[in-house]
């Protein structure tokens, strides 16, 4: 009888053991969501990332700037011809460029003697169109006996040149401002940093001609030719940065959202700066998004006011007429108002044929495009002379500047995307992580690490390339639709479904376990009593 009881107890215990050791893990494994492995440690390392940017600067001394004993200490001696009779710094810059092709991201500083007539009197530093700068050695710089002293004298100047031509602290903080909360600077810099488009692998540029009054105006614009002449050279130059595609359209009966006010003193209609924000809303519905890609769109609108509201002028905050009659909206695009009432002639017969002066229009749009793309020309420090723009509208070093800040921005964007994705996945356990997502995340992390390493090594081109790849991979992982599948299947529902199975199974097990425990306790008490 006792052995029978014992056998029952053992059976209950072993069933409980089987349920706990085999049943529960089996159930857990079969109902758990699939989560591929993510490089969490590396992502956490990225979260507190230290960026180190380095740029190669090559300093070339012209004859007469170094003494013979200093010259002896120089490890390599290269003899190259320098245009001594060049009359202007521009020519010198061009001829120097033919001497050495510097890779993108690097700089060459030519130190010329004080007596050189190459630069005007009050100019110490001349910044060329390529990646070169001419630096006039000051009188006080000759005091240094050794090479180290000479270099130490030059260093502040070279630093300045670097800040103009490559990157400065404000550039980098502006590039990071979207991702990392910074100490708020002055409002000017906030506006500056908000103006340019965010970095993206491609941009769509759309020129729209708004003709609200096709009954009075037959407007013709040679947009194809204008794009070829004015916009394309700039975009070809910017090609390493992103892919650009251009299109144009004509929209009829496109009204502005604001009724312009008539100003009798000027006998013209005016648009105030505070009403500008409402101008584009109704137009935007008709602009249409790009059906064929998901890149950001830069809109440039040319508005020809209707005959009853001409001429139309834009006023700024100080109630002054804006000379260009154009304005731009940060990260959206620009509008230019093109008044045509001057061309009606004495006895105008409507509709009037109007050919738009594309040079005037494209000058404005090009300036806006440069602003929106973030090509900023901050005022150079005193004593600096910047070469005039070339026909492409962009100097090599300006492109470099843009590439520096874009690379930093890309790295910051990809880092925040990846870290927030990791955080999200960590917080919500229900999300399925498929292998392809894990692969995207790993490739994004690898590209990020490579980009950071290349930045450190000063290889700007590679760094930009890797940072673009990182952004693409991280966005693809973040916006993958498979992440959403099981998001709304909470755990409590899962348990509710299994309760009809669990309850009848667990109650007998628990009860018999309790009984075994109480019996064991009673037995022990009896044994103690017997001993006593």
């Amino acid at each position, binding site marked *: 009888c006792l052995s029978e009881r014992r056998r029952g107890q053992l059976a209950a215990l072993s069933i409980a053991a089987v349920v706990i050791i085999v049943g529960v893990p089996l159930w857990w494994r079969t109902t758990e969501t699939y989560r591929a492995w993510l490089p969490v440690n590396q992502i956490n390392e990225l979260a507190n990332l230290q960026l180190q940017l380095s740029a190669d600067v090559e300093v070339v001394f012209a004859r007469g700037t170094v003494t013979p004993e200093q010259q002896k200490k120089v490890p390599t001696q290269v003899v190259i011809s320098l245009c001594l009779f060049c009359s202007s710094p521009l020519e010198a810059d061009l001829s120097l460029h033919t001497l050495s092709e510097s890779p993108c991201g690097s700089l060459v500083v030519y130190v010329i003697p004080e007596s050189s007539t190459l630069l005007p009197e009050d100019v110490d530093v001349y910044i060329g169109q390529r990646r070169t700068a001419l630096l006039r050695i000051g009188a006080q710089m000759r005091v240094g006996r050794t090479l180290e002293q000479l270099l130490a004298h030059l260093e502040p100047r070279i630093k300045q040149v670097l800040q103009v031509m490559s990157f400065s602290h404000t550039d980098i903080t502006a590039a990071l401002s979207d991702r990392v909360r910074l100490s708020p600077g002055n*409002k000017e810099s906030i506006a500056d940093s908000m103006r340019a488009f965010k970095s993206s692998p491609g941009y769509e540029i759309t020129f729209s001609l708004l003709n609200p009054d096709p009954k009075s105006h037959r407007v013709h614009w040679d947009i194809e030719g204008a794009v070829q002449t004015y916009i394309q050279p700039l975009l070809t130059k910017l090609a390493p940065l992103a892919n650009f595609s251009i299109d144009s359209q004509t929209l009829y009966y496109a009204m502005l959202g604001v009724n312009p006010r008539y100003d009798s003193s000027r006998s013209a209609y005016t648009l105030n700066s505070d009403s500008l924000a409402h101008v584009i809303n109704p137009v935007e519905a008709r602009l249409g998004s790009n059906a064929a890609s998901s890149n950001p769109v830069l809109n440039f609108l040319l508005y020809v006011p209707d005959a009853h509201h001409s001429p139309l002028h834009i006023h700024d905050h100080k109630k002054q007429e804006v000379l260009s009659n154009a304005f731009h909206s940060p990260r959206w695009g620009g509008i230019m108002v093109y008044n045509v009432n001057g061309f009606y002639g004495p006895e105008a017969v409507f509709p009037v044929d109007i050919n738009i002066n594309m040079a005037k229009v494209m000058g404005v749009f090009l300036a806006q495009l440069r602003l929106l793309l973030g090509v900023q020309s901050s005022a150079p420090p005193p004593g600096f002379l910047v070469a005039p723009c070339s026909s492409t509208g962009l100097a090599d070093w300006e492109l470099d500047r843009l590439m520096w800040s874009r690379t930093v921005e890309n790295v910051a964007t990809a880092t925040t995307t990846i870290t927030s994705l990791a955080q999200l996945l960590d917080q919500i356990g229900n999300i399925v992580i498929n292998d392809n997502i894990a692969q995207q995340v790993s490739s994004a992390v690898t590209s990020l690490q490579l980009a950071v390493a290349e930045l450190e090594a000063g290889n700007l081109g590679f760094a930009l390339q890797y940072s673009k790849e990182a952004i693409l991979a991280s966005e693809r992982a973040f916006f993958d639709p498979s992440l959403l599948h099981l998001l709304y299947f909470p755990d409590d529902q899962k348990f509710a479904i299994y309760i009809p199975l669990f309850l009848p199974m667990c109650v007998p097990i628990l009860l018999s376990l309790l009984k075994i425990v109480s019996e064991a306790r009673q037995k022990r008490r009896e044994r103690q009593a017997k001993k006593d």
Partner: protein
Amino acid sequence: MAAHRCSNCAALLILCSLSVFIVVDSQETTLNGGHHATTVHNPQTTTGTAEQTAEPAVEERRWEATAVEEATPDDDDDAAASDKQDTSAPETVDPSSVPQPKDDFQEELVIRPLHSGDIYASFQFRTVWETDFMRGNKVSHYRLFPKSLGQVISKFSVRELHISFTQGYWRTMQWGQPFQPSPPGAELWVWFQDSVTDVDGTWKELTNVLSGIFCASLNFIDSTNTVQPSASFKPLGIGNETDHRFLRYATLPREIVCTENLTPWKKLLPCGSKAGLAVLLKSEKLFHSSFHSQAVHIRPVCQDWQCKTTSWELRQTLNVVFDLHNSAQGKREWSLFKMFSRTLTEACPLASSSKIYIDITDNPQGEQFEVSPATPLLSQAVVLGDRRTFSVYDLTQQITFGTVRSLNLLIRWKSSEGDMLRPLLHAERYVAGYGLQTGEIHTLMYNNHPYRSFPVLLLDSVPWYLRLYIHTLTVTSKGKDNKPSYIHYQPSKDRLRPHLLEMLVQLPPNSVTEVTVQFERALLKWTEYTPDPNHGFYVGSSVISSLVPSIVAMDTNSTRERPLFSSFFPCKEESSYFVRVYTEPLLVNLPTPDFSMPYNVICLTCTVVAVGYGSLYNLLTRSFQIEEPSPGLAKRIANIIRKMRGVPPL
């Protein structure tokens, strides 16, 4: 040039590579917001917190005047400057020097009074653009052609695109043939260029993009409702490529068409709904009708007789039938205002032609109805195998609008007699059978021609969950078996592709041809049911395409100036004309489970498992002992008596 003068050598010493480091520490830069208030706070503003003042300041910043220094980059030496000289010449020009635009826009409205007292209005807007989307040309500068559709054509290498959204069913027997036939719901068929390698992938992407452009559920088009018809849908534009690998056809019979589809459709017009005929398109009236259909057709067409240059044609059509009792309160009197609650005041200024046609063929002497204001312009056109007469109102002429500067056409019936010409071809379809297991699809095709027989192409696309028994396919006309001369059948694959059945059937004169095929209803998985499964499942319309013998000679010159409504289907021969007829869509009930079933099943299984488990558990864990049965009542009483007597118990 500079290099020649640089003969003197100068010793240049390349010294060193200076590396300058700027370390940006992201940890350091996240500053606490405490400083925010103090640094941003503007001393001029005395009221409000720092946040409040900072916000509008930033907001103001959003709009900045663009300051442009006159020295624009083109002021340099090269070609740009000379070009500028050219373009900045006179800004107003005499019209002769204006380049001839390569695109052209026409608009047209046809009104046909129907014998039932209803009225049929058909809008057509046509944009023709002499450009080349094919051969990888990058087309990017749009004038009248909508940019969104142009981008779709060039991105997806589309050769021809036809899309229609229809609410209601066209009643051929009451209303005659429509100018542009369309099935209820949404229909999309696309011919891709032969340079497309992954047609299915492109088709999937294209449907998603179109679904965004037209605000429709076209994204529900997938492989289960897409077919590649081998003969029924030939390209309507130029090009002799007829390899049906590049054709995709899909219908969504369930699609509801409403305002949200009309608005993007109107946006594609150059004048929008601001001027021209499109001002009449107000959704509150258009959707209060018996039939509404809007469509977009894009195809390459010939520019001239020899077809030396090709251009792209975008046709936007909108057909609507207003009901006599619903919209006109039973009074046989129609006007533009009654139909559309608008009148016309101008043509679209961009349109090269803008006309209204009223079909007065059945009313030569004005005995049926009268039209006011009267117009002296009459036009004859051969349309759908018949020579019709139209009154024409040319909106580009100011005289059309009269002294009130607004045109409100009035059509007043005088008598409700008269008979309609029966359409030569029409078709209907229904599902027969009972129960939820099998059924039978019947398609009836009527040839009303008194003495001519003609062949028709029947296309049926049936979803996979109706399993067609193709061996039961019978075609009978006049009680006799009618053997189709061509059958193309593609069986379905579960959850992958639908059935496709195409047949070429000869219809004898004055006859009804019946096509029947039996099917079995499949059981779906429980997630495959629609949210309202008891409503039933739609099966798209059958498509019947045919060359119907014509009474009058058709016009085969496709490039001659013709009204738009008569130039949609290209005409190859004079003796016949092309007609496409759609049958009704079918609504089929499928066996529908009780949707709480999964939980019930779980509960039931769990209970069974629990009962089995419980008894097994009891057997295993309980210990069984033999207990002495307790003595009976009589024995106990006997024992008590024996105890009292002092005798030992039993």
